[in-house]
Every structure is written in C-alpha cells, then in structure tokens.
C-alpha cells in the first residue's frame, strides 16, 4: 500500500438510520483501504452496535487524532467527541437530538478537512426531517449559485448543476454568461485535480432543443469565453440528448442548468449506485445518494455497495487518480 493514499473522514450518518451499518460493512470489505486511509467521525457506541447489526466481528477503537489510525480493515478507527448519548437513540425514527448531532459531526469533519488533517470528507446518510426538527438543515443543503455546485455521479454519467434548489420561475434569470464561465472554470480545474488531464465538458442548454434567448445571450457567450481560456467545453447541447452523449463517453461530465434537468437524467438512466460531491469547499466533500432506510435498520439487510463505492471514489479522486466506473 502506497502512502499516497489520502486520508478520508467519513461522518457515520444519522445514528437511527442504516448509515453506521453500511459503513461498517464497507469498512470490513477492505476496499476503502486500497484507495484511502479512512477514519470515521461520530459515536463509537453507535458503531459498535452497527457492527453487531451487520453481523461482523470488528473492534471499534476511539482515537484522538487522525495520526493514530491503525489503517486496517480489521479495526474501525473513530474520532468520537462524546456528543452523543445512546439514551437518545430512537432506531428507525426521527429525532431532533440525532439531527443536531449530525450537524455537529459534519462540522467536525469539515474542520478536519479545512485544517488539512484529512483530504476529503464523506457524509453518511442523514435524515432531513431530524435535521429540520433540530433547525440545522440549512447547514447541510446551502448550495449557493456561483459559490458551490452539486456534482452528481452515476457511473459514466457525471453532472454538475449550475443552479440547484431554486424555484423554476427564478432559475432562468440566474443563468448569466459570467456564471456559466465561472462554473466551467471551476469544473475544469476540479476535474483536472481529480485526475482527468484533459477534461471534456458538455454544456446543456436551458430550453427545449437548446434553442432560446438564454442560449444566445448567456450560455453560448459563457461557453465561448471558456473555450478562449483553453477549456474543452462544448455547447449548449439539446438537454434531451446531452446526457446520453455523456453516458456514451463523448464527454467526461455535463454542466446542467438546473435541478430537475440533471437529477432526472441521473436517476432515470438505470445505473445503481449514485453519489454526490459538493464542489466549492477546497477539499472533496462527498455524500451517498441513499437515505436512512428506517424500515430495515438493524436487520442486517442494508446494502453497503453505494457507501463502499463512495469511499473508494473519494479516495481515488482525492489522490488525483480519476473516476472509477
């Protein structure tokens, strides 16, 4: 194992959901260790319980700092700030305490990344209801156009969103050539950092057949500026064709104009195993696409493949080794 493997901190997700179980299974597979040096952020007691749910026999070891990791699939290393009390656990049900502790753990993981102690973070499945109950949901989903972008990955289909949680009525006004240009610059430089030496970016249109005023006045000029700056961007392309082109490897990634445009493409093409990056923070910020699956918590049935893929991919991208399909 090479020491170039990046340090990746995974927040264990809501204690009442399947996050801790799937993380235990993914950890035990040994795959994350091939691409990264993983460490968890959360509650050791919750992880011990989850190891049992998963039918595994793995010790959970609390460490004080990332340089103490065992770097082994046979020992789970966790940074536990002691903020969670097992008395507050309501398996399979939302509660505000769990919502609050998720926000706390996310902050701890992000601080580790910001201080340079780890190279990237992964967010286990959280409950938006619990976080809403705790009044902390805004801390997770605040994606601001021009500052951060949602980048969804579904096998060969990779889609960064120019705008995200915005009413459709307001979306069209937000699309400016400056925003398109700046997003393309961000996208190009990130893709290069992740290990694609010459990224090919397809830019979606906004309107049907990529034919309209916004294409002429904003998107095309934005793409042309990016091209003049040496970025291999093509577009605007008809939104009903561009995602298929990406799956067929004509592009490495697509810049979608708004939430449903990209999300429909990602969720409907039939690939199982999505994950999501927030592009904006100066480190890799990954999350898995599935939720807390309260109905199967504790049964050992939860499938860990998506979590495992997210852990492997985060390691690979943080090391500049590219995507793994």
């Amino acid at each position, binding site marked *: 194992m090479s020491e170039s493997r990046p340090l990746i901190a995974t927040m264990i997700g809501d204690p009442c959901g399947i996050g801790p179980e799937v993380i235990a299974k993914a950890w035990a597979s040994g795959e994350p260790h091939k691409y990264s040096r993983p460490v968890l952020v959360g509650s050791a007691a919750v992880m011990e319980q989850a190891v049992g749910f998963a039918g595994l026999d793995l010790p959970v070891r609390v460490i004080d700092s990332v340089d103490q990791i065992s770097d082994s699939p046979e020992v789970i290393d966790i940074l536990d700030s002691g903020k969670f009390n097992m008395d507050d656990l309501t398996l399979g049900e939302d509660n505000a305490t769990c919502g609050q502790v998720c926000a706390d753990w996310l902050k701890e993981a992000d601080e580790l990344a910001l201080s340079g102690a780890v190279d990237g973070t992964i967010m286990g499945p959280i409950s938006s209801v619990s976080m809403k109950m705790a009044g902390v949901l805004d801390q997770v989903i605040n994606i601001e156009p021009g500052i951060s972008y949602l980048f969804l990955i579904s096998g060969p289909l990779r889609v960064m969103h120019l705008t995200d949680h915005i009413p*459709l009525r307001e979306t069209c006004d937000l699309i400016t050539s400056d925003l398109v240009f700046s997003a393309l610059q961000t996208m190009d430089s990130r893709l290069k950092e992740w290990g694609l030496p010459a990224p090919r970016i397809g830019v979606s249109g*906004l309107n*049907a057949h990529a034919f309209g005023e916004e294409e002429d006045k904003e998107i095309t000029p934005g793409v042309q500026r990016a091209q003049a700056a040496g970025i291999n961007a093509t577009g605007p392309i008809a939104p009903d064709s561009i995602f*298929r082109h990406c799956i067929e490897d004509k592009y490495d990634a697509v810049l979608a104009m708004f939430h449903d*445009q990209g999300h429909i493409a990602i969720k*409907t093409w039939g690939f199982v195993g999505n994950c999501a990056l927030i592009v904006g923070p100066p480190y890799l910020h990954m999350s898995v696409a599935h939720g807390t699956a309260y109905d199967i918590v504790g049964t050992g049935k939860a499938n860990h493949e998506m979590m495992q893929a997210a852990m492997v991919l985060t390691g690979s991208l943080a090391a500049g080794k590219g995507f793994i399909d």
Partner: protein
Amino acid sequence: MTLRLAVTPGEPAGIGPDVLIQLIQHGYPHELVAYADPELLQQRAEQLGLALTLKQPGTDPQPLAAGELAVHSVPLTETVTVGQPKPANAASVLKALALATQACMKNTATNKQCAALITGPMHKGVINDAGIAFSGHTEYLAELTSAHRVVMMLATKGLRVALATTHLPLSQVPAAITQTALTETLGILHNELETKFGISKPRILVCGLNPHAGEGGHLGREEIDIIIPVIDSLRAGGLNLIGPLPADTLFTPKYLDTADAVLAMYHDQGLPVLKYQGFGNAVNITLGLPIIRTSVDHGVALDLAGTGTANSGSLSTALSYAVEMAQGILPGKPH
C-alpha cells in the same frame, strides 16, 4: 380489417419520403396513401435504388404489395434537390397536410376516408421563410380541425408522457401553467386514454414544476397555487391522478410501473427520459383532435436524405400505433 391510412412525407428535401419508400419495400398490411408529389416519390426511389409502384386508392383499401404505395397527388411547385428545402414548395407541403387531415375527418362525403393521419417531419424554418406562420404540426392541426386544445404525447414501450406545455421558452412555462389549462389538458389526457387507448380509469402521474415538487412552498408555489387544486378538483370528479410528484423520482420504475401515463409540465421534463427508454422507437401522438394522428419523433435530417442511411423505425412505430388506435387495440402494451 384492412385500413386506409393517410401519410404525409413532410419536407420533400428531407428524409420523410426516404423512410416511407424504404418502409413499403416489403409491402404493408394496410393501404398507405401518400399525400405528396408522385414525381418526387419516383425520383427519390430511383436515387435510393428502390422499387416503387404508385397506384390510385380504389374503393376499398387494399394491402400494399412489395414496393407498392397509394398516392393522392399534391404537386410541388419546384423540382426538389435533396437536402435543400425550398420556400416555393412550402404551400404545397401544407396543402398535402390539409388534404390528408380532411380525408381523416368523420362525415367526409367520400368513400376514400382514412382511419388515421401519420405525419413525417416538416421544416418549420422554410415554411416561415415562405411567409406562412407555422409553429408546428400540432398547432396547425388544431386550427385545421377547430380543436380547442390539443395535447402532445410521446410514447415508447411501456411509457407514455404527455406535456402540459410544448415548445415554450422555459422562462414562460410557469406562467403558462394555469388552472384552466391544466384542467383541460388532464381532461383530454384522461378521456383519450379511455377512448383511444381502451384504458378504463387510467392512472395518471402528474409532475411538479419545481425542484422536489416545490418542497411545501419553499422551492416555488405553483404546486400549491395551481397544480394541487386542479388535481383535487379532478379527483373529486373521478379521475385517478397521483401527484404532484418530484419529477426526478417520478420517472423511476417504482412509480412508472403503476402508471398508464405521466403528465410532465414542460418539454425537457418528460422527453429526455423517453430518449433513454426508446430512442428511434418513440411516437408522437396528438390528443384532443377529432382524428387519430401520430408522427415520427425525428426531424428532416437533410444530410441523410437520398443516401439510404435514414432509419424508418420511427415511421414504422408511428404507423403501428395509428393502426392499433384505429382498431381499438391498446397501443404499446403486449397483447
């Protein structure tokens, strides 16, 4: 029963004539009547190196033998060069469409009545260049048949998507979705799924407009102000409607497996999914007309005209749907 079907090849310089001539090379079980210039069809057949015997429609519709095609002559003004649409021919192309439509109308005082209209691709630009305002087949046919409101639906195997708005700029979509428009559109969709598709009490999924279908008003208010009241009111009238659902989860098997059709709020909410599911085999159906009309889902492909490389799969699917709708067989479902 052998049917008589009216077919308009559309733009003469595009692949419309090609795919029709290619399709009848092995004959066809129903009588296809091309509303077109016979000379154009013969020229194109020669260019493609394919057989073509044109005949007049008789009293009763007859199946087509290999290479045979019935024709209702609508002469063009200028000779056609493949790949080069001419505004001078635009009036004739529209006349063919009008005559074919009339042939499908009930109470036509002739025994030459056609059971359905199947349209090839038109070139909107060249018709407008000729000084004739034309925004699309769907709108033109609505006017021609005095239909009050029409609904565009695309169908592939197992998925039917109707659109609440069609070719509007996205910025104008929210304002176009009014309670009246949505009520009428859902009414047409429900009725025609029953009458033309033979589905009793069709289950229709309705997309939201905004991300997460508005997330309780946080990401847009159209769901609360427009879509939900319309759904509630139509449900009270007996319609089986589900929604508004977030569009990105609606188009997954969990929901689609239970649905007879989906109503999308705008073009690109519904059509990209169809492209995944059945590109080349999708068919465009106009609901709300007094006639059965289906269409190919491709364009004029000027660069492919006359080369023999155009694919007639979409025309074949459009014809099959028209036949099954005319015969009252549920299209697109195994039977």
